[in-house]
């Protein structure tokens, strides 16, 4: 049963957001007997609500509250009001994610040490490393049911994978398989095994893909220690004269302003909303926003170096059939500066339905060069590129004081310029992706620009030294002991891997730390 906590109950932990970070943290704390109020800006949608229709699903799940953009990234031109394709719902973007669940490689925790000084990049080592994270990754993989871990089999390859695999093998790539996916490849009696439906991005109607919406959230609620308040949009975090946070103000489902007291506040609203909330919580005592003595809140925004390669063939592929992203080439995910850039990238299968292909293949394009590509949609294969991008201080989330949301709150402006390393890596990846498809007879290839971001990282980064970042090794803000950051915004660097598994592992670890500190009376 969901536990209703009183607004004046100052013993609760308030968690803002219920995705991979907040949703997992809420459940993990609830399992340990901690009282939790989770405030979720979106509504609750479950597998029976999801729709196998790209635009209808986008309308149901996507975060479309206003945001603004600037910088030289193409998203700012093509999708200026939509810098990210992420979700506003209970479960957050875990409803939308494709399920790719990869651990960081050891060197990626130490980007500054490994890569040295990269001009224009604000590189930093994480204060934690692979050895410290290994047991938490173990727990995260068990929780998510990640294929190719714990003895679980990989998913079967679909048509899109078979094309991808044949091209990869022809080029001599060796680390090629159907991925480590948080999609059930076996029957555990709980989540249904993957039925190869092909709408992973629209919410898995079988519940085969892990999402906190129908796993951790209800599990937490069943303890009686977790209350999830839906359609509760947090406006600001409050503090007392000593600088400790005391609660949050939020707009409830009816648009009324409420105040929930708290013993601890954990921010997990994604890398746009989390810094936006800290900045919007500025006060006389903290004029630059909460936890911002370093000036790093909102800075070092990373979105992964991405892009896609599609290719047409002289025979049908029907890439949309089956799991959207169950296919990976990992050979390029290594640090090898002889390629002309630092860090590495993964190549992962990807398909879009016809409606989204029309929107994303070459935004703004028209005429026969574009439409003949869609004419060959049935014969198309596709892959996504995901690689480490460079943190830059000037890539940042700021408040746009000229634009407000439905509550009158300044919205986030997202500024992003590609770093030369990002561009060099993308060009390398395009060439390799094109080579994969040409090796199996592609008749035409399409190096497709990045979509609105789904991997949004780094705007409240973790640092050993309070001068360099916003949170410490536990995600606890350097400035305020009872204020934590629990989402991907705490990433110091982005690594080449899809971030969800790491966000989940950090959340499990943070829950253990917070519960321990609470029972010691330290928080």
């Amino acid at each position, binding site marked *: 049963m969901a536990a209703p906590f009183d607004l004046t109950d100052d013993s609760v932990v308030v968690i803002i957001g219920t995705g991979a970070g907040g949703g997992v943290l809420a459940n993990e704390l609830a399992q340990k007997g901690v009282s939790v109020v989770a405030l979720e800006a979106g509504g609750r949608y479950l597998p029976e609500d999801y729709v196998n229709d790209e635009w209808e699903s986008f309308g149901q799940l996507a975060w*479309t509250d206003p945001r603004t953009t600037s910088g030289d990234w193409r998203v700012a031109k093509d*999708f200026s009001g939509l810098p990210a394709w992420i979700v506003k719902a209970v479960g957050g973007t875990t409803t939308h994610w494709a399920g790719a669940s990869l651990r960081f490689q050891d060197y990626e925790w130490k980007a500054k040490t490994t890569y040295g000084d990269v001009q224009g990049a604000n590189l930093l080592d994480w204060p934690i490393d692979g050895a410290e994270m290994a047991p938490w990754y173990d727990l995260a993989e068990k929780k998510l049911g990640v294929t190719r871990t714990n003895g679980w089999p990989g998913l079967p390859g679909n048509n899109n994978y078979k094309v991808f695999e044949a091209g990869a093998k022809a080029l001599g790539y060796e680390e090629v398989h159907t991925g480590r996916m948080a999609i059930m490849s076996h029957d555990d009696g709980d989540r249904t095994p993957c039925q190869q439906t092909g709408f992973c991005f629209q919410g898995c109607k079988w519940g085969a893909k892990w999402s906190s919406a129908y796993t951790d959230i209800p599990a937490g609620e069943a303890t009686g220690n977790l209350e999830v308040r839906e359609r509760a949009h947090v406006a600001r975090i409050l503090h007392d004269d000593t600088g400790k946070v005391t609660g949050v103000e939020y707009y409830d489902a009816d648009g009324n302003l409420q105040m929930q007291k708290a013993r601890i506040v954990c921010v997990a609203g994604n890398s746009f909303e989390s810094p936006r909330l800290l900045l919007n919580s500025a006060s006389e005592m903290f004029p630059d926003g909460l936890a911002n003595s370093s000036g790093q809140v909102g800075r070092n925004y990373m979105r992964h170096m991405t892009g896609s390669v599609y290719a047409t063939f002289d025979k049908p592929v*029907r890439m949309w059939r089956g799991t959207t992203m169950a296919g990976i080439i990992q050979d390029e995910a290594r640090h090898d500066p002889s390629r002309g850039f630092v860090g590495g990238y993964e190549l992962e299968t990807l398909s879009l339905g016809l409606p989204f292909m029309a929107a994303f293949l070459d935004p703004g394009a028209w005429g026969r060069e574009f439409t003949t590509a869609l004419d060959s949609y049935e014969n198309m294969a596709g892959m996504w590129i995901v690689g480490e991008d460079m943190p830059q201080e000037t890539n940042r989330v700021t408040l746009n004081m000229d634009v407000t949301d439905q509550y009158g709150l300044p919205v986030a402006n997202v500024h992003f310029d590609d770093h030369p390393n990002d561009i060099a890596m993308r060009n390398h990846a395009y060439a390799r992706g094109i080579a994969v498809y040409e090796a199996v007879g592609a008749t035409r290839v399409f190096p497709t620009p990045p979509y609105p971001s789904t991997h949004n990282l780094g705007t409240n980064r973790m640092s050993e030294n309070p001068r360099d970042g916003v949170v410490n090794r536990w995600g606890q803000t350097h400035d305020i002991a009872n204020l934590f950051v629990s989402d991907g915004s705490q990433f110091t660097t982005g690594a080449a891997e899809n971030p969800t598994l790491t966000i989940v592992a950090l959340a499990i670890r943070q829950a253990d730390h917070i519960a321990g500190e609470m029972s010691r009376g330290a928080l």
Partner: protein
Amino acid sequence: MNTPKTPRGMTRRQLLSNAAILGTGFAVGGGFIAAADAAWAREVQALQPQTFATLVQMARDIYPHDKVGDEFYVLAVSGYDTPEAAPAIEAGIAALDAAARGKGFGSYLDTGWERDRVDILRGIEDSAFFQQIRGGLVTGLYNQKAVWPIFGYEGASYEQGGYIDRGFNDINWL
């Protein structure tokens, strides 16, 4: 740092505004208009018949698919045939015709070759009118479920049990 832009572009409302129009059928009233080859016919409500016919041709020239019939393009732009939208569309098509005359043609519709019409469109592609029509077509044309089979796209699959027993791995030419 660049000046932040006000929110525009792909907001949900804009994205879905055209898609939402689909399926409402044809409005009744106003003049009756048919294509020269009688492949489609409909009654226009607020736009001049010639304007609507030009708009349909423009839509096809922006996203030409030879296997997609005119009825899909008609439906994709039918949302502009309202009293609210009509003045801007009339003005936009008038400018398009003026551009055609500037290149020596009688009107856009009288321009016989697609390459010449595309050349006219290239001359106005940065205009708000062109971008409105093009942007609307991305959902207005490609989000019509009836158009998907022409491209081979199969749409929703959950109701059929996914593809686990329906060819998710049936590729046979590798």
